[in-house]
């Protein structure tokens, strides 16, 4: 199972712009590198990252072969109401990892 580090502020005031930071453990094997025997290593990357706030898509990113291992993504949101943030990473070989974090708006 992939490990993740996610930073979401514990609380935010209404209308405040908050920064979300995510880091996930993943080799991001490009598909262009040969192994010791000269055969190409099969591509194994995360292709899509999404962040939903109470089922509403608020951030999405498409990832490609040029992105380094353990992708670090950071983005901002305007906090309007309390709710749950759902982070999902999808990739090759049916890779899928989902994490949720609660956000409290005061």
């Amino acid at each position, binding site marked *: 199972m992939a*490990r993740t*580090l*996610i*930073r979401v502020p514990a609380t935010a005031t209404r209308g405040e712009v908050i920064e979300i*930071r995510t*880091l996930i*453990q993943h*080799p*991001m094997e490009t598909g262009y590198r040969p192994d010791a025997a000269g055969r190409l290593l099969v591509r194994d990357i995360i292709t899509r990252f999404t962040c939903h706030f109470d089922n509403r898509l608020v951030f999405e990113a498409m990832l490609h072969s040029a992105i*380094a*291992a*353990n992708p*670090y993504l950071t983005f901002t949101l305007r906090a309007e109401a309390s709710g749950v943030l759902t982070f999902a990473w999808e990739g090759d070989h049916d890779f899928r990892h989902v994490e949720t974090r609660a956000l409290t708006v005061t």
Partner: protein
Amino acid sequence: MSACRRQRWLPLLALLLGAAGPRSGFETMTPELQAMQRDDAGNPGMLSVLEGEALFAREGCAACHAAAALRGVAARYPAHDPARGGPIDLAGRIAECREQRAGRPPLPRESQPMLALQSFVAHQSRGLPITPDPRLAEARAEGERLFRERRGQLNLSCAQCHETLAGGRLAGANIPEGHPNGYPLYRLEWQALGSLQRRLRGCFTGVRAEALAPGSPAALALEAYLFGRAAGLPIETPAVRP
């Protein structure tokens, strides 16, 4: 004071500070990389520390060792091992404890679980100064000899770059003093967490020399010398390096 004038003083200031003792490679990194290392939510090495923490609990290490009691351990290694009559490094100690006391099958020295355990243990000592084991004087002397010995087709010794030319540049890269205070560390070039032995192998291959076998007496002696020379530097595990 103009920026130009201020800049003229910087090298002098650096020289004065540098003369005060060993300088961690952290200090010559870009501010962006330093921020990455400081931020526990952005430092990719923390993923291995978390993995190590889970392994520590799952493998039964926690039955004997409390994580809090491991604070300061990594700052004392390599240490003298009476049974071997010589130095043992942190990786060696963890392997010995796992295999002989916990009866677990051995893990390859640089496998991901072994690095994770090592980074978790070393992380407990983050911020503590390295205090070399006084019983290792003999190993350190042998390590220093290896450090100053010219080797490989390029006929270079460690000291030529990491002592005489430290602070300079090799092509675009900084030449650090080569201190081992952040291992296992996350190196951007590797895109992974790696051990001190892996880093040494990189340098040895770079000068076209035969690398020391990990865990061999020569490798341990060199490691003991490197830790002795870095005495007082804080442990940074998991450090980030370019």
